[in-house]
């Protein structure tokens, strides 16, 4: 299902925030398989078994956390080639039900986290002579799912930030892109489906709405992130890469 090339990212140093999450974890494993030295950061330590993936405790909403991660990478490796800002949360509420604290918490992780981690990664990317930053947008940054208001807003902010960073740091050889997943089978998605009782029929209904008749696996997103991280994507920057099984290519799917 994916063609791993053990040399595609050979010699590269990568940091993946949210490395414990469904998609972040798949990215860490893929980067390792492609030859990169990988640092997974998160608030809880992931279980990578025997795979030699470094772990750094990291609350992305805290600037000290970003400094700490980059200090360790600098001390160990002296440079950074790839940063994936995969840490993110969602709050399933309309704005009316969202408190200011909840709003700020979502922005602190999804937007501030992307900002702070990228900011402190830049000196190490310059040391590498360039690099690739991959942010996590969402198709929800383009069109809305109901009762995900602050999540949609944070992803729209990440999309704009991605373009701004690409403009500012492109001249230094630093490419910045965002991947914008649709529905991917992760703990976050299962939480969104919630306790709706018959989750099997709900999942089938969701699959049926997709032109490809399935929703994504974390590996599907890792495939794209892996491509963007390496030299095959050397001309790709400033773009928002929607990957959603065709979901957002279609008009509203009425039952006709």
């Amino acid at each position, binding site marked *: 299902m994916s063609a791993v090339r053990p040399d595609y990212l050979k010699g590269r140093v990568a940091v993946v925030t949210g490395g414990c999450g469904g998609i972040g974890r798949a990215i860490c494993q893929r980067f390792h398989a492609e030859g990169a030295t990988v640092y997974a950061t998160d608030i809880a330590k992931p279980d990578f078994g025997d795979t030699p993936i470094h772990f750094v405790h990291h609350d992305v909403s805290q600037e000290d956390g970003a400094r700490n991660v980059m200090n360790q990478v600098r001390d160990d490796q002296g440079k950074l080639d790839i940063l994936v800002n995969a840490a993110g949360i969602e709050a399933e509420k309309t704005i009316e039900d969202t408190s200011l604290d909840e709003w700020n918490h979502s922005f602190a992780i999804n937007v501030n986290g992307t900002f702070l981690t990228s900011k402190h990664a830049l000196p190490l990317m310059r040391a590498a002579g360039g690099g690739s930053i991959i942010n996590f947008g969402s*198709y*929800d940054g383009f*069109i*809305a*799912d*109901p009762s995900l208001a602050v999540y949609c807003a944070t992803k729209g902010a990440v999309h704009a930030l991605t373009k701004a960073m690409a403009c500012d740091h492109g001249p230094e050889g630093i490419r910045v892109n965002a991947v914008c997943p649709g*529905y991917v089978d992760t703990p976050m998605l299962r939480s*969104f*489906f919630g306790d*709706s009782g018959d989750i099997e029929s*709900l999942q089938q*209904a*969701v699959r049926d*709405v*997709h032109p490809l008749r399935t929703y994504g696996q974390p590996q599907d997103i890792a495939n794209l992130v892996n491509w963007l991280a390496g030299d095959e994507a050397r001309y790709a920057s400033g773009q928002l890469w929607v990957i959603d099984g065709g*979901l*957002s*290519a*279609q*008009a*509203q*799917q*009425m*039952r*006709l």
Partner: protein
Amino acid sequence: MNRLDGRTALVTGGRQGIGRAIVDAFIHEGADVATCGRAGRPGDLPPTIGWHKTDMASADNIEDLRLEMLDRFGGLDILVNNAGIQIEKTILDTSDEDWDQLMGVNAKGVFMACRAMIPIMKRGGVIINIGSISGNVADPGLALYNASKAFVHGLTRSIAVDHGPKIRCNAICPGWIMTDMADAAFAVADHPATAKTDTLARHPVGRFGQPEDIAAMAVWLASDDAAFATGQCYTVDGGVTAASPLNPGLF
């Protein structure tokens, strides 16, 4: 003071639906209006409104229309390319004749009308093309229609770029507007009534569009209030394309 006092306007496809609503709204705002369609003059069209029997796919018919605008108005201020047809087929079922018929009106007709009318917009002018949300996202089983509307969106930007500042050109992208064309789309559903109910639930405004909703946007775009608006495709769809196609609340 009406917003279109002293303006002359041609609205293609003005027999019914969105086109007719634009004709009526333009008259209400003080414009001098002509319209056209493939058949004879509609019985309920006010006598002051010009009617021209026109096949938008015919170059000869469009040239006749141009001469009639010169004869009737001495030029033209506003062109609304509303005439359009839809064919409910995937490309595998679509014949060359279907292509010629649909693209002849929806694409070539818009091109020919713009090419003919821009030179007679002597005081400068406004072109409003009717695109569709289907030109941005695909409605199933409407392949050529979807593609023809994407053409309209692209042509809209080109005309704005090539012929500004003399001409302002924008498109309106309607969503589900309750017209005979929408009813034809529902008619092919297994359960048309259920389909309508389901569709309605996906509209944040809680209703389908009316032709008057699109006419209101056309009036604004035609007026001087829109003096800085050009080259854009404005969606008026009750919010349906702002929402994800996947609405868990409906499952």
